[in-house]
């Protein structure tokens, strides 16, 4: 046996292989379509990338599209369940200028940064998309620097779940809800949302602050304006909740699952939650609230205006590196069409983006919370639309979390938040 020869061969093979890889894969990074413009002859098969299809909608959608577009077949690629992983996956493929991702599903909070990076195609000119039938909040969230960059495909808003066996009418204001707390039975917390140190905290904090009339940033999307009395009022609603006890102490670790679990097992009187919880509460085996809970818009500061909810949902965006952009834009329009929107609601509980569908009788029969959800979305405020969203949301999460834990006063938290958003929006953090 020739050890030395084998070793020499192995090492040189490895070296040669790496050099070869280096030289050859230069190809993939230099290819890629030119941004903007481009001939409208860009038709052909496309790959559509989205998160995990937990409700098995892909086969039907694929069939619906492919049957009418035999030469422009769509292939879906599923990413992981975790939003952070989905984001990293998209960032990586865009940075590598991958031409294989034609249409990608973006969370409403990612649109601005993808647009600013020059990764997604502005939807104007030959790629224009009509937006009159769409919910205004969803269009606003998909717009950056005055241009539409993504096609809203599904929407979401926060709702108030309440135990209607204990509280016959849902509270319309924060004060009413706090007064209703005494109707909670023993061992039951009063109200909870999602307050763990993650994106859900930004959602809940945004709702509280926006409901009280405050904002995080001004209209330009980057100048912070959060150090105001209105914002303090909103933040105090949550801070006092922990101090005075109408928000249970362990809610500081709640994400969606934990808060839903608490309501499901009868440990909460009121819960702020996305609509997906409705079917789970009605069907889960350990749910003690079947038929005993109701849905209402989030309580506001005063009785005349419901609380502002945070806009959720996803949009479709077109990669500038894709080769078949004409097909891509058609697919995006297809996904906003009524049949597809209806299917997504009935199959996957994804709220539609078309205003008219909210009053469609068949849909309302399927999902009775739809009119309430419409109200919620119409009163929804998008989270800050900024290309530095990751840094901004981190600034919000860190400072709000510290305030909720009592580590700093709400005034200090808002001051620090103002400074942090300034820094984040200037490229720091």
């Amino acid at each position, binding site marked *: *046996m*020739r*050890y*030395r020869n*084998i*070793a020499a061969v*192995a*090492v040189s093979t*490895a070296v040669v*292989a*790496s050099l070869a*890889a*280096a030289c050859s*894969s*230069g190809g*993939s*990074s230099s290819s890629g379509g030119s941004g903007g413009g481009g001939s409208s002859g860009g038709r052909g098969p496309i790959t559509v990338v989205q998160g*995990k299809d*937990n409700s098995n909608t892909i086969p039907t959608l694929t069939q619906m599209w492919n049957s009418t577009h035999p030469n422009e077949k769509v292939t879906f690629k599923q*990413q*992981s*369940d*975790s939003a952070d*992983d989905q984001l*990293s*996956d998209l960032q*990586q493929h865009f*940075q*590598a200028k991958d031409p294989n991702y034609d249409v990608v599903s973006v969370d409403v909070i990612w649109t601005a940064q993808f647009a600013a990076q020059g990764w997604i195609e502005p939807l104007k000119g030959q790629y224009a998309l009509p937006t009159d039938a769409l919910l205004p909040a969803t269009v606003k969230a998909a717009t950056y620097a005055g241009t539409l960059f993504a096609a809203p495909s599904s929407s979401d808003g926060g709702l108030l779940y309440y135990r209607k066996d204990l509280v016959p009418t849902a509270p319309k204001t924060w004060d009413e809800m706090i007064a209703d707390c005494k109707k909670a039975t023993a061992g039951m917390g009063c109200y909870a949302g999602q307050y763990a140190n993650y994106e859900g905290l930004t959602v809940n904090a945004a709702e509280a602050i926006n409901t009280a009339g405050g904002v995080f940033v001004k209209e330009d999307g980057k100048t912070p304006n959060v150090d105001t009395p209105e914002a303090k009022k909103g933040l105090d609603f949550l801070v006092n909740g922990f101090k005075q006890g109408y928000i249970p102490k362990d809610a500081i670790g709640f994400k*969606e*699952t934990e808060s*839903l679990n608490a309501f499901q097992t009868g440990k909460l009187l009121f819960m702020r939650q996305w609509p*997906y919880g409705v079917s*789970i509460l009605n069907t889960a085996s*350990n749910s003690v609230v079947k038929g005993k809970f109701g849905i209402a818009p989030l309580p506001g500061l005063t009785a005349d205006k419901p609380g502002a909810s945070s806009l959720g949902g996803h949009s479709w965006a077109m990669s500038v590196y894709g080769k078949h952009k004409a097909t891509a834009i058609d697919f995006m329009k297809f996904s906003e069409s009524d049949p597809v929107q209806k299917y997504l609601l009935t199959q996957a509980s994804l709220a539609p983006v078309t205003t008219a569908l909210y009053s469609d009788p068949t849909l309302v029969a399927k999902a009775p919370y739809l009119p309430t959800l419409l109200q919620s979305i119409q009163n929804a405020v998008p989270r800050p639309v900024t290309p530095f969203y990751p840094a901004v949301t981190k600034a919000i999460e860190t400072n709000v979390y510290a305030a909720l834990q009592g580590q700093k006063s709400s005034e200090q938290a808002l001051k620090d938040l103002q400074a942090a958003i300034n820094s984040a929006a200037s490229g720091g953090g």
Partner: protein
Amino acid sequence: MTSSVQAPPAPSGEATIEQPKRGFPWGVVGSYASIIIILIWCLAPFYYMTIMAFRDPNYALDTSLLPRHLTLSNFKYAFNTTNNHFGRSLVNGVIIGTCVTVVGMAVGVFAAYAMARLQFRFKYAILGAVLAASMFPGVAILTPLFQLFSNWGWLGTYQGLIVPQISGALPLAVFILTSFFTDMPWELEQAARVDGATPGQAFRLVILPLAAPALFTCAILIFLSVWNEYLLSSVLYNGNDNVAPPTVALAKFTAGPHVIPYTQTMAAGLIVVIPLVIVVLLCQRRIVSGLTAGGVKG
């Protein structure tokens, strides 16, 4: 009369009773008690992992320390590919581990031989450089490799995961094998040379076969450390489940969007751990001697 009783010198394998004959034998009881404490320390969490792996997910928050609500469903779920690609990650672990081990040892054994047997300029400088290379934290090479691999399209590929780990395997191999070769008696090679063998032949026919146990130990230690690796793999696998090693697959293990998979994760973890524990137990003497190579002698 001396007040202390001198026990006869005991062979070094037995406890000497230090007290005078009267009184409770604290020494013996103490040493057995302490052994039990050590056993509990080492094995209790592992035991907990086992009972949770067999516990029905609906009772995940049942804090009983006895095996309860037994089921095999967690193990079935571990290989279910709807949400995870755990089975694939085991294969990936074997592939990556084998490649890193082979390359690390194939390259390292020659350097180790040179370090142990030959005199040459810069010998200690090179040894120091190898030591320094192993002291860099993973993050020091992570950022540039991430960008480099991003340009080469190596993110989410096997080579992207194998190559960086050689940075740790190679120094490990060099250290273990250098120590081993140093302790090896020179006479054997001398004898072979006297018999007319070239240095190369002496190495191949005399040293390597004798070094087989050390090579084996070295291979095991490198393989184990590759299976332990998380930092580089978790970033460089880039979301591609087809190349993710078991540590990454386990860290991301999920049972659906709104569920915390306590028991399922423990089952998957047990599947990863059992083979490792078996290998370690079978080879414990080798491993322990490899880890303490040369540290005790002299």
